[in-house]
């Protein structure tokens, strides 16, 4: 049996109202899904060739198969009215909370369609140091590698850098924060990364994107093989 929908369906959702004001002001963006003359695709930088991405991809898949249970997934705890991330972490009180309500309270996104494996920093074992060395222009760097299994997505959102703040404890200057992403495996059936109004597809392993703040984005794996990405969060060095 399925559960009734939690919120009246509407094609007119004001997603912008869920974004913290300091992000909207600090990193302005067009916020128009219909806009076609955008420059969202300019976030692409280049292809990083001097890394054995196939080896990293194989390592990540082997680790995920070893762990078996995805570390992360979102769900709405109806009883306690909490947005949950993984088995025990709550997003209540975080800047992401209002965005999360749109996906996990009002829509049927839950632990069954938002799973991913996350290997962060030292979890990356021998890969951590070489990945850290790729971007010497950043300080307080955190690195996360995501393995997204088929059938799962990370719904549309704007980054709020919560884990960066938790990890470093430093006061966040959004104008100096950077989030970089590299595709670890080649594009395959059903792999999507929706960066603003640009749908990234047909990518090659090593493709490097500078995901500047304030842009609505999401990703999904509606295919048949794992989708693997690696992300750097850090502050620009003067």
């Amino acid at each position: 049996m399925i559960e009734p929908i939690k919120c009246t369906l509407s094609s007119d959702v004001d997603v912008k109202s869920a974004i913290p004001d300091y992000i909207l002001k600090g990193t302005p963006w067009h916020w128009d899904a219909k806009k076609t003359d955008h420059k969202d695709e300019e976030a692409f930088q280049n292809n990083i060739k001097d890394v054995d991405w196939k080896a990293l991809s194989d390592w990540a898949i082997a680790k995920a198969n070893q762990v078996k249970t995805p570390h992360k997934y979102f769900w709405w705890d109806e009883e306690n009215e909490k947005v949950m991330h993984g088995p025990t972490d709550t997003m209540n009180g975080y800047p992401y909370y209002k965005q999360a309500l749109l996906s996990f309270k009002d829509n049927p996104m839950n632990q069954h369609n938002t799973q991913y494996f996350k290997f962060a920093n030292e979890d990356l074992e021998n890969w951590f140091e070489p990945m850290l060395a790729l971007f010497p222009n950043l300080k307080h760097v955190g690195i996360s590698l995501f393995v997204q299994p088929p059938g799962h997505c990370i719904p549309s959102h704007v980054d709020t850098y919560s884990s960066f703040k938790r990890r470093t404890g430093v006061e966040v200057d959004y104008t100096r924060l950077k989030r970089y992403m590299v595709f670890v495996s080649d594009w395959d059936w059903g792999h999507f990364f929706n960066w603003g109004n640009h749908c990234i597809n047909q990518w090659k392993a090593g493709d490097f994107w500078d995901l500047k703040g304030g842009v609505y984005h999401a990703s999904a794996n509606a295919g048949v093989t794992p989708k693997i990405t690696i992300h750097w969060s850090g502050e620009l060095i003067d």
Partner: protein
Amino acid sequence: MTNIFDYQNYYHDFLSQKGIDLNNCFKLPSVIKLSLNAQKLLNIFSKSENKQNKSYKARPFFPQENMFQAVCLSNLGYNDHNTFETNIGLDLNDNLELKSAVGVNNFRLMNLDMHSSLVRLLEYKPGTGIPLHTDSFTAFREKYRSDRQVKRYFVAVSGWDWGHFLQIHDKVITHWSVGDAYEIPEGVYHLSVNFGIVPKYTLTITGFVDE
């Protein structure tokens, strides 16, 4: 070698055996621009008492190849939550109402025989989609005991929004407008997904090509 229970590449191997390769470019037929009254269609959907809720899974009546695809997808992690769909159109009255709302002129634009066509209206809520599969029109042909050419169209009822995607072989389709009709030829692998924030409404129109 991974044991047979943990092995995850059955679908990929199956595609390879069939010679299905994303590196072979698919030539997408030109989009046909229909003039649709989306609100009228959504009203029919809203008041229908024959809504069918379903998810993508192996079903006893599937042809062998579709059955294999469905089993592979289930094994990969597709489930009731990420493939849930609500549709109308299989009921005769709903189908007639939908066809009437689409209108004679649009059937002419698609060059389809309106009388025998099947129109379904599909709703995919955020977090759901239909995974990689092919369509077979065998049942449709058998119903009418005809070997005439059959075409199927994906027609946008809601405008494109963030997280709405259609992939036909290697072509990823986005930014559609209401009324955009994309032909999905028989046997061509495709999928569609909504990982946005608003529901995605589309028609699938299947019919005999008017000769």
